[in-house]
């Protein structure tokens, strides 16, 4: 199994492959992942040139551990297969499928990725997949999409197109996204996959952005798509466990391990009732803290 399936992905930053100035050094801002865009951000007549820029950036720029995801063009275009050849040959870490609506969409991309790995001598299984859901049908099919491929690490909501499909628009309150967000996180967890939220496009409203990130964090999302480096510190602040939470999680794990051996099922930690149901959550907090670099302990 590819060890990167479950890697830390709090912030996934979009970058336009048409602009060499944007893709040359985004690692300095410290996102967990970058999404190198061949789709909407690239003008139709620059699609070919963007691929050359992408290929050489992937081959020659040291992104210092930042995950490199490529958003390919839609499966309804005549561009996506060459996008995959270019991306896989360049050595990208993952392919983001736009406008995913069915499990079949994921399987078509998976087949093209496998063929490209074979053609370019890339280790089989190295290239992961994620699926963006941008329509009512895509959201409703979230579970079958999540289960379509072992390479698929997660699903992401694309709010702009989704709200168009719902015949509404982004309000800033999140009301219009509630159903999709709730359905997607449930489907992703049922399938053991990650789930990512849509972009927040109003860069002049950082308070609104913070509230948006807090909402999706509370809902259980793994991270958020972002469009500007200014958004990264806020996302990381909200998604990184606080010291108090880490200390409590450590106590919970140690106490459950100890008490289990003594045949005790229910007990208290810092005045809170704890039983085995808290174990996985505490382990997850510690794993996230470790991946975020704020916990060096042995649990």
């Amino acid at each position: 199994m590819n060890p990167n399936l479950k890697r830390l992905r709090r912030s996934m930053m979009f970058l336009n492959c048409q602009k060499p100035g944007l893709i040359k050094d985004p690692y300095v801002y410290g996102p967990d992942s970058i999404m190198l865009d061949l789709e909407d951000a690239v003008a139709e007549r620059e699609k070919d040139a963007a691929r050359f820029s992408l290929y050489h950036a992937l081959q020659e720029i040291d992104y210092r551990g930042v995950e490199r995801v490529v958003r390919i063009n839609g499966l309804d275009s005549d561009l996506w297969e060459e996008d995959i050849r270019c991306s896989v040959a360049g050595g990208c870490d993952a392919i983001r499928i736009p406008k995913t609506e069915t499990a079949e969409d994921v399987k078509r991309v998976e087949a093209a990725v496998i063929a490209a790995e074979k053609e370019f001598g890339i280790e089989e299984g190295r290239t992961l997949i994620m699926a963006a859901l941008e329509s009512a049908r895509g959201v409703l099919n979230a579970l079958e999409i999540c289960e379509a491929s072992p390479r698929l690490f997660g699903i992401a909501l694309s709010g702009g197109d989704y709200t168009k499909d719902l015949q509404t628009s982004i309000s800033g309150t999140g009301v219009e996204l509630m159903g999709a967000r709730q359905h997607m996180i449930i489907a992703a967890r049922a399938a053991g996959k990650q789930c990512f939220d849509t972009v927040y496009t109003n860069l002049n409203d950082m308070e609104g952005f913070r509230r948006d990130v807090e909402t999706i964090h509370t809902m259980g999302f793994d991270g958020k798509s972002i469009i500007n480096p200014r958004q990264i510190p806020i996302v990381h602040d909200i998604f990184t466990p606080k010291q108090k939470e880490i200390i409590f999680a450590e106590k919970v794990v140690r106490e459950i391990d100890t008490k289990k051996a003594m045949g005790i099922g229910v007990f208290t930690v810092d005045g809170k009732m704890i039983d085995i149901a808290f174990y996985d959550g505490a382990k997850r907090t510690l794993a996230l803290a470790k991946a975020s670099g704020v916990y060096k302990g042995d649990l």
Partner: protein
Amino acid sequence: MDIKKSAVAGTLESSDCMVTVEPGNGQVDLDLDSVVIRQYGRQIRKVIYETLKNLDVNDVKLTVVDKGALDCTIKARIEAAVFRSNDIKDSLPWGGAIK
């Protein structure tokens, strides 16, 4: 590869370069203008000639206006212009002539 017609790739934005290829007169004829020519002129020329060699382009009039592009961008823009001059957009030789 032959240069079948004039083609352009790139922009004059910072960190980019604009490359124009035209059918040549039996040789490589390079016109290079760069904002960093004094510091990196030799390296830029090296990248340009290596890229043309990889593409097996021996007969071209090439104009490069560089605005501080990285080597990888210079390569990408030359390749884009050369393949555009041949109207080739698919089944490209990634890792072969493009390297």
